[in-house]
């Protein structure tokens, strides 16, 4: 069923009795041309672009839990392309462009809202570095605008400009950035992929890879053996665990990142705002809750919950730039497992095992990358060569010393 204003009116007039399921629930076949392991945002997007842009057929997505149960349903929904490095910025800009046309592509309302992101700066040196980043963004076709304190003040009068420790001197604005409804992204991609014949198989745990003479020919799953031509793994926080079954050790550690939501408030925060002197980012959801987060907890974790010291640190960051939120009551917080790579940048590449491909290392920036990650992974699976915006997101860059260290923090994942 194609969603439109007419389908909406029609259903409303007939008591909403004729809506059909959004995707099928097929039993797995014994053979596919391409199997994607992981039914999160990236896996579903990969399947969608394989079917829609690369004309591939006979594709399955295997998901251990249910669609949208992982990080695609646990993030702070921010979409942006304000990166500095050559290997990163074109990729994220490609992603932002895909976000802009996403709802038409998948015929699903993802509530994409380009409300802008502002990175605050607190010193002259930081202003210089933001000028540099803004220029790098513009050189790659993204938009960036440096705001003076006055300009910023007219957009966000509520910030603590005179803060003694971290005075706010201005910000770097990317207007085309914003937020999208994260669950809708998973459901929209799933529905669009399903309509193009992709089998989405939920509650299907991959227990082993079938590897013979360095070639991967299929997977053992909780629903039986599935043979396949190619396998793409996009399982975020579970990457090390899953790839260990194929005998691979990776430059990845799994860490927990927490997010927080307050009670619903009237519209007060216009877009996304990030603190330049600590790690804090905040936006306001359409329901009115303030959605915010900060650093990862810093220790390896597979528990989808964090600890209180980070809670405190994040709230202090918030209070440092906007004391007005101090009286808002926190409703809930939760944690997600991040696949932190050793340089803070992702990996979309072949593995040393033939026909086995890897999409991982998204750190805590996976959501904004969803469309481009899907497109580039689909390109790699279909053509056996990296997409032109993902040529530097290689697995062997650590061995070659060609790091993409956006933060400049070195090979320590908990610092990225």
């Amino acid at each position: 069923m194609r969603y439109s204003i007419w389908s909406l009116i029609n259903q409303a007039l007939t008591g909403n009795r004729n809506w059909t399921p959004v995707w099928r629930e097929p039993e797995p076949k014994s053979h596919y041309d391409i199997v994607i392991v992981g039914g999160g945002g990236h896996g579903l997007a990969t399947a969608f672009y394989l079917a829609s842009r690369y004309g591939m057929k006979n594709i399955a997505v295997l998901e251990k839990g249910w669609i949208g149960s992982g990080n695609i349903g646990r993030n702070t929904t921010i979409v942006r392309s304000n990166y500095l490095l050559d290997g990163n910025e074109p990729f994220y800009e490609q992603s932002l462009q895909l976000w802009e046309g996403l709802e038409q592509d998948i015929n699903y309302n993802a509530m994409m809202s380009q409300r802008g992101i502002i990175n605050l700066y607190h010193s002259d040196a930081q202003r210089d570095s933001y000028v540099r980043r803004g220029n790098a963004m513009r050189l790659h076709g993204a938009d960036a605008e440096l705001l003076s304190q006055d300009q910023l003040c007219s957009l966000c009068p509520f910030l603590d400009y005179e803060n003694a420790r971290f005075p706010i001197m201005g910000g770097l604005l990317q207007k085309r950035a914003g937020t999208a409804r994260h669950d809708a992204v998973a459901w929209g991609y799933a529905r669009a992929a399903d309509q193009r014949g992709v089998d989405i198989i939920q509650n299907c745990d991959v227990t082993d890879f079938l590897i013979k003479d360095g070639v991967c020919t299929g997977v053992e799953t909780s629903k039986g053996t599935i043979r396949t031509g190619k396998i793409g793994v996009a399982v975020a926080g579970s990457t090390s665990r899953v790839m260990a079954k194929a005998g691979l050790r990776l430059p990845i550690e799994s860490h927990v990142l927490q997010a927080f939501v307050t009670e619903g408030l009237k519209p007060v925060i216009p877009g996304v705002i990030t603190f330049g002197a600590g790690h804090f980012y905040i936006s306001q959801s359409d329901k009115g809750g303030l959605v915010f987060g900060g650093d990862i907890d810093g220790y390896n974790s597979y528990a989808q919950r964090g600890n209180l010291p980070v809670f405190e640190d994040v709230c202090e960051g918030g209070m440092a730039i906007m004391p007005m939120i101090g009286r808002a009551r926190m409703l809930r917080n939760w944690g997600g497992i991040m696949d932190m790579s050793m340089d803070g940048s992702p990996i979309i590449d072949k593995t040393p095992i033939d026909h086995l491909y890897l999409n991982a290392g998204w750190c805590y920036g996976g959501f904004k990358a969803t469309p481009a990650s899907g497109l580039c992974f689909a390109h790699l699976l279909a053509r056996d060569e990296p997409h032109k915006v993902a040529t530097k997101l290689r697995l062997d860059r650590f061995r070659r010393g060609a790091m993409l260290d956006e933060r400049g923090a070195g090979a320590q994942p908990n610092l990225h």
Partner: protein
Amino acid sequence: MIINHPHLGPRDASEFTILGDASLINRPDWQAGDADDAFYTYQYLRDNPAGLHRELWFHEQGDRSWLVVTRDTVTHAVIAVALASDVAKAAKAKTAQKTAPKKVATQKTATKKTAAKKAAAKRNAT
């Protein structure tokens, strides 16, 4: 999380910083023939287990000792804590035991050294 410090007793994890996998104690030999590969593995590759994980914590807000903490990454439960220096010493002792015949060689060199020292002392005396 509470880390039971061998000297100081139970301390809150926020007094510590964490470096990562305890395998970082075993720094490869930079002069070995396969140093390239060994350092790549040492620096970048991780087991990243779901379950028991041995890791290095630094008591930054305390006595500034390095600890090897064994922790369950699924439950965050701290299972065991030891001083990193003790762990490193124990590991060295083990490798020394394994390469026991070499001990004779080191003794020989030691006697040679002492002989050289004696000779030098004689020279100085004269």
